[in-house]
C-alpha cells in the first residue's frame, strides 16, 4: 500500500470507529455500570439504571448515537517518534471527524468562538482538539478518541492552591465540585483529577486521567490511596445516578500527577458522564489496526 492509500484507509477506520464509540460504550464502562446497577438498592436509582440498560441496547440495535450530544471530538495521541504517518496524523483525524459526523450522524457541535456561528461540520478552528505525546523508540501510534457532551464538560475547573492548603485542599476542591456541578453532569461519573504545577499542567493531566480505564489504579501509592479515599468518600454521599439519590455515584476516580513548584500545588478536574464515550486504538507502522477498548471490533 502506498502512503496515499494508507492515509485513506486509516481515515476510514478512525471515522468508523468514532461512529462506533458514539453508539457503544467501551467494555470497562459497560462492566462498571452493570456492577453499579446490580449493587443498587434504591428503587428510584434502579429505575434509572434500567433506563440506561435499555438505552444501551437500543443504541446498538438501531445503530444510533446513545446520547444526542456527541460532543466536540478530542483525540489523545501517543505517537512513536518513528511512526511513518506522523506528519499526516492531524489531517487524518480532522477528516475522519468530518466523515464520522456525516455518516454516524453526529450532532454539529462546533461553534466558532468570537465569530459565534456553528460551522455545521463539527470541525473548526483547532477542533477536533488533539493532545500529543511523542514516545521515543516506537514506530506505532495509540489514539484515544473521546466525545464529551456539554453536560459533563460544564463542571471542568481548576485552581492553583498554596501548599498550605495541601492535599486537603485538593480533596475539598474535588468534593465541592461533585456536590454542586457534578449532580447535573449525569452521574455515575468518572472523575479525572490532575495534580501538578501551573494550572494548564493540571488541566491536561485531568483529561488524560479520563482516558485510563475506569477501574485502573494510579501507580504511585499515595495517588492510589487518594483515588480510593475520594471514590469511597464521594460514594458515601449517596448522590446516586443522575444526582437524584442512590447508593453510589461514581464509575471511578483517576488521578494523574506531575512535579510541582515548591510554592504551588495545582488541581484540576474533568469529569466523564455515565455515557463515557472513549475509545482506544493502535495502528502499527504498516497501518494494521487493533482496538483495545471495545471487544469484538476489528478493522
Amino acid at each position, binding site marked *: 500500500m502506498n502512503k496515499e492509500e494508507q492515509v485513506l484507509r486509516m481515515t476510514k477506520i478512525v471515522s468508523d470507529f468514532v461512529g462506533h464509540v458514539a453508539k457503544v460504550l467501551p467494555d470497562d464502562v459497560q462492566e462498571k455500570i452493570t456492577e453499579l446497577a446490580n449493587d443498587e438498592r434504591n428503587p428510584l436509582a434502579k429505575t434509572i439504571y434500567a433506563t440506561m440498560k435499555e438505552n444501551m441496547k437500543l443504541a446498538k440495535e438501531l445503530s444510533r448515537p446513545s446520547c444526542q450530544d456527541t460532543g466536540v471530538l478530542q483525540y489523545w495521541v501517543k505517537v512513536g517518534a518513528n511512526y511513518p504517518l506522523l506528519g499526516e496524523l492531524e489531517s487524518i483525524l480532522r477528516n475522519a471527524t468530518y466523515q464520522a459526523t456525516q455518516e454516524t450522524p453526529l450532532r454539529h457541535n462546533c461553534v466558532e468562538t468570537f465569530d459565534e456561528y456553528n460551522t455545521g461540520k463539527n470541525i473548526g478552528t483547532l477542533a477536533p482538539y488533539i493532545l500529543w505525546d511523542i514516545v521515543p523508540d516506537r514506530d506505532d501510534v495509540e489514539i484515544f478518541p473521546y466525545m464529551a*457532551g456539554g453536560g459533563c464538560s460544564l463542571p471542568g475547573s481548576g485552581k492553583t492552591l498554596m501548599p498550605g492548603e*495541601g492535599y486537603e485542599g485538593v480533596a475539598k476542591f474535588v468534593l465541592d465540585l461533585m*456536590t454542586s456541578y457534578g449532580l447535573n453532569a449525569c452521574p455515575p461519573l468518572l472523575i479525572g483529577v490532575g495534580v501538578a504545577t501551573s494550572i494548564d499542567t493540571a488541566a491536561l493531566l485531568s483529561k488524560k486521567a479520563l482516558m485510563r480505564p475506569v477501574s485502573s489504579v494510579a501507580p504511585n501509592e*499515595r495517588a492510589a490511596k487518594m483515588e480510593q479515599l*475520594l471514590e469511597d468518600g464521594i460514594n458515601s454521599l449517596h448522590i446516586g445516578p443522575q444526582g*437524584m439519590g442512590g447508593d453510589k455515584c461514581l464509575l471511578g476516580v483517576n488521578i494523574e500527577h506531575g512535579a510541582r513548584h515548591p510554592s504551588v500545588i495545582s488541581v484540576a478536574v474533568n469529569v466523564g458522564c455515565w455515557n463515557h464515550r472513549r475509545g482506544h486504538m493502535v495502528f502499527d507502522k504498516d497501518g494494521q489496526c487493533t482496538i483495545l477498548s471495545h471487544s469484538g471490533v476489528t478493522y
Partner: protein
Amino acid sequence: MEKKVLTTPIQRKDLEGIKAGDIIYLTGHITTCRDVAHRRLIELGRELPVDVRDGAILHAGPIVRELGEDTFEMVSVGPTTSMRMEKFEYDFVKETGVRLIVGKGGMGPNTERACKEFGALHLVFPAGNAVLAATEVEEIESANWRELGMPETLWTCRVKEFGPLIVSIDTEGNNWFEQKKVEYNAKKEEVLESIYQEVKFIK
C-alpha cells in the same frame, strides 16, 4: 407497582398526590421548548405558535431526520439542562398554562412558585438516554419556528408512555434536588474531615 401514566390534556386535579421523587409516564403530546422559545415569549412578548395549555414541554434539542415535506423522524432526543430556563419559567407557566415541564437536573425558586401557584410539575427524564426517548415518540406532528434551527425548533411530538419521568418539583413546590443537596452537603463535611486525616502528605 403500577405505572402511573398521565395523558394530555392534564388538569390540576390530575397532579394532586404526585410527590417529588415519584415516577410517572406521559401519553399524548409534548413540545420541545428551550432557550430561545422562552426568551421570545417572555422577553420579546411573542405568542408561542403551539398551544401547550394543560400540556407538556420538553427542554431538549433533538436530532431529527427530515423524511419529506413536513414529515420527520425523531432520531435521538434527550433532555438539556433545565436550569437555563429557570429565569423565565414562572412567567412561562403563567402565560402558557403548561402542566408538565420535562428536562434535566433541578430548577429553582421561580419554578417552585409556578408549580405551586398554577399547578404544574417539573420532571426529569434520565439524561443520556436519547435513543430510548426517541423510540417513545410515535410521531412528530408539527414543527414550528423552524428558522431557529434543529435544536431550537418547537417539535410537537405524540408520545406513548414517555418516561420514566421523575418528579423534581411537585405542585406543593417541594424540590427534590434542593432537599437532596442539603443531605449531600451535610454528609460532605464529615467525609472531608476523615479524608483530611489521611492526606497530610506535605509535612
